[in-house]
């Protein structure tokens, strides 16, 4: 089934395979404390700074399963043949598996999207002759990869190289409503910590403020062209390949609505609206950024407006997470 974000989608599908149907994409995202922000000026991807709206690849699956008490098998490999054999054994044993892959050599992706981006996830659920049957959460329909093609994307190189990473949940786990309730609560509590209390200036709400202030200086420091490319990079990270829009803020807002079904606390719905507003403002900021990288606008005051959007977003999200931290959980 298609999903907005690859890892949420893979998580949900793998859990469905072992008979756990209650976990929707927003629930997987929220339980795993998926909302994040980090700006890493020194680490470059495609000649631009790394700006991430989600934690490291693999953490959503790991977080969801851990919170729900589901045992996970996870493996990385040094050698390609070993990785291939392990995959075949899994399939022979009836396990559909999640694979972390790079999109650079992924043949069914359009050329324009094939950067050295290694945090993509897909499911391999069978094989016919030399072809593997693949369910990619970005695609509407199942697809196939030859063993050569699959090996190539599983051993993509560069930042966050997947090293053949494969994972699946063990069968036989049962998830109760009580467990989901608890997982929702701990997921939210952890997300509050990640966004408010990590003592680094580039992470969480502080990271958004940091980035907003930097953006105002980009025009003088980098020149208009490079500053525009950096902003384009920000927008791509925020909106591209499966964020569900608004840097995952809309998925998180959807999660809080679903959380309300398990914890009928009215304030969850109000906070959900706050994240909707935040996601909307991220998108407004993206429109401003587009004006700059298209060359339609580009004065210092345009950069100031852009930076101020981020400061405003940071304040909205700070209030939202403070509100989440003050929830009086009944159970």
């Amino acid at each position, binding site marked *: 089934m*298609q*999903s*907005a974000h690859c890892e949420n989608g893979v998580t949900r599908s793998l859990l469905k395979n072992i008979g756990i149907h209650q976990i929707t994409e*927003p629930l997987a995202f929220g339980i795993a404390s998926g909302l994040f922000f980090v700006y890493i000026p020194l680490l470059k991807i*495609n*000649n631009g700074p790394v700006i991430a709206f989600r934690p490291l690849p693999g953490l959503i699956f790991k977080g969801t399963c851990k919170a729900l008490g589901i045992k996970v098998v996870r493996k990385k490999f040094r050698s390609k043949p070993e990785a291939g054999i392990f995959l075949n054994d899994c399939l022979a044993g009836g396990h559909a598996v999640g694979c972390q892959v790079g999109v*650079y050599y992924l043949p*069914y*992706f*359009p*050329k*324009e*999207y094939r*950067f*050295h981006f290694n945090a993509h996830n897909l499911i391999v659920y069978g094989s016919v002759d030399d072809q593997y049957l693949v369910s990619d959460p*970005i*695609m*509407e*329909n199942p697809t196939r990869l030859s063993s050569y093609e699959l090996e190539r994307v599983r051993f993509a*190189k*560069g930042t966050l*190289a997947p090293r053949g990473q494969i994972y699946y949940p063990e069968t036989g786990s049962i998830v109760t409503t009580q467990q989901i309730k608890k997982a929702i609560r701990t997921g939210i509590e952890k997300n509050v910590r990640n966004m408010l209390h990590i003592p680094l200036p580039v992470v969480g709400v502080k990271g958004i403020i940091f980035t907003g202030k930097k953006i105002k200086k980009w025009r003088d420091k980098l020149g208009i062209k490079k500053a*525009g*490319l950096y902003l*384009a*990079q920000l*927008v*791509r990270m925020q*909106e*591209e390949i*499966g964020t*569900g*829009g*608004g840097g995952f803020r*809309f*998925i998180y*807002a*959807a999660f809080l*609505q679903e959380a309300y079904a398990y914890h009928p606390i009215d304030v969850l719905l109000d906070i*959900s*609206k706050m994240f*909707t507003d935040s*996601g*909307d403002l991220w*998108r407004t900021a*993206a*429109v401003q*950024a*587009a004006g700059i*990288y*298209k060359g339609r606008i580009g004065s210092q005051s345009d950069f100031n407006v852009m930076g101020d959007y981020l400061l405003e977003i940071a304040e909205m999200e700070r209030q939202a997470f403070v509100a989440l931290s003050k929830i009086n959980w009944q159970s």
Partner: protein
Amino acid sequence: MKKEDVPQDLSSLGRITKEVCYATDNSGKYVTELSKGWDVKITALDAAWEDIESRVSYAREKVLNKEASPLLYFMEKGLMDVAILADYTGFWKWQIKRHLKPGVFNKLSDKKLQRYAEVFSVSLEDFKNMNIHGDKF
């Protein structure tokens, strides 16, 4: 974002698949809605590619002027840097930096060149002569 505001600007990905967006319906409840793309994203991607194209054509000039080996051209075209190329080919970074010099490049064995050609998905001849066919990279 409201459901009716989910943008439908056709992107190159939109020709192959639609993206799932989360948006609110009339009652404020979150639902999923498919999007063909968004102009703001399409132009962000275009901006990135324009930058790549200009680096590729600059590399091509340098190769034609014998200031660099064809390796530079394919490296830029493949969106790579020396570090990624070292990971893919198994060469050391300092070796790759040497291979960027035309004098060194011309003396490389076919066996070594083949390692590069495979990473760039081109034939040995095309690699040596900086030929490209269509959009392949």
